[in-house]
């Protein structure tokens, strides 16, 4: 993901702009929080004006929406603040509208923002992945079950979890008086927006309501504190492991080295296996979705599929050896 390290940024410091792209109805206002320079994937705070109407639509991108204020009528149901949607690529979202206006986070995960008018799913769309949640009313706060874990007073609501990559979307809160004296980094990018409240991080100072960051992997953050508590919306693009330490001066390369050294120490057999020559770490669980980087790798993976009897198609143009 080619997004710049944007940390911190407070969206209250800039004005809304009109999103005037072909197919986008009038009344769609946005503040760009971060954007991928290559794909156009982005995170925006959005203000839909009172009376905004959007026809039934699909997108070539996964789309996430989190309502922070106002209400949005989607199909026949009115969603209040706390409403969350994960709309997989190609899944048709019913017409939506807002009578008095709606303030939301909108994320296009694969492309720049766009709307294709359609009340039909695209071929291959994974409708079973559609998530619609009333996060404030229907979900309880949970203690994270990670190891190592954040301090008591940091609670989560898990909104979306990608079983394949462990990327996730979540609400989080720090209760008043929260503190955690350690420095953390992760093997994944992390993104967050403060729906309400101010917290402090030792590298960046205070992040108030409307505060946002997009942080690449292996960047130090913490210690942490919040006097009055916060409500935040967060996402990662991979598995969220807390690498805690107390060296304020380490840089991302040194942190990545430390993470690799820890993996070698803590999972020596896996490390040995990963370095074994002549195999390609074929994942039989996700055989159909596997993408190989080289012709040699494709041949090996294809042979592994045959060896395990994994169903697959042959819509590729390489030659391979079949096992008898």
């Amino acid at each position: 993901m080619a997004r710049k390290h944007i940390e911190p940024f407070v969206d209250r410091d800039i004005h809304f702009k009109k999103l005037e792209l072909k197919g986008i109805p009038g009344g769609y206002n946005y503040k760009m929080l971060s954007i991928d320079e290559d794909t156009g994937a982005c995170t925006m705070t959005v203000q839909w004006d009172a009376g905004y109407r959007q026809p039934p639509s699909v997108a070539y991108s996964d789309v996430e929406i989190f309502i922070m204020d106002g209400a949005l009528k989607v199909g026949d149901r009115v969603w209040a603040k706390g409403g969350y949607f994960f709309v997989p690529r190609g899944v048709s979202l019913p017409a939506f509208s807002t009578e008095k206006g709606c303030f939301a986070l909108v994320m296009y995960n694969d492309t720049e923002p766009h709307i294709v008018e359609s009340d039909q799913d695209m071929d291959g769309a994974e409708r079973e992945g559609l998530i619609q949640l009333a996060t404030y009313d229907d979900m309880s706060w949970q203690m994270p079950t990670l190891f190592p874990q954040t301090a008591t007073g940091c609670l989560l609501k898990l909104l979306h979890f990608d079983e394949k990559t462990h990327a996730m979307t979540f609400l989080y809160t720090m209760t008043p008086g929260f503190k955690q004296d350690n420095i953390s980094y992760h093997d994944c990018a992390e993104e967050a927006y403060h729906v309400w409240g101010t917290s402090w991080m030792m590298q960046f100072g205070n992040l108030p309501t409307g505060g946002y960051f997009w942080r690449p992997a292996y960047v130090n953050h913490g210690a942490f504190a919040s006097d009055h508590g916060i409500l935040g919306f967060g996402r990662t693009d991979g598995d969220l492991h807390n690498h805690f330490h107390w060296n304020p001066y380490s840089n991302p390369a040194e942190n990545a080295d430390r993470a690799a050294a820890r993996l070698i120490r803590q999972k020596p057999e896996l490390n040995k296996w990963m370095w074994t020559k002549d195999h390609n770490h074929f994942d039989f669980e996700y055989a159909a979705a596997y993408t190989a980087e080289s012709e040699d790798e494709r041949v090996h993976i294809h042979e592994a599929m045959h060896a395990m009897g994994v169903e697959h198609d042959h819509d590729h143009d390489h030659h391979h050896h079949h096992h008898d």
Partner: protein
Amino acid sequence: MSKKILQNKPPRSEEVEKWLAEQVAEQNTRYEQICREMNDELEDRREQWYREFEERIQTTGFYWHADNKKIIKPEQIYPKPNRKNKVVY
């Protein structure tokens, strides 16, 4: 399957390319400002925060898991390297 949907996306129009270029340019400007504010202007204050953190982990303790803490010894405190400390990359 849904990767094929992404692959089927039509090429961007000139209008969208122009819009994207504007967004990226604004983000680059914002990023440069953040680098200045965080890496340079906040540096002295942050050094003070580092000293206070080091004091706390030697007295009230370092959080190694949840509220489990351990006291860090003075000889375990990392020295400041001979390079600029960056927090935004």
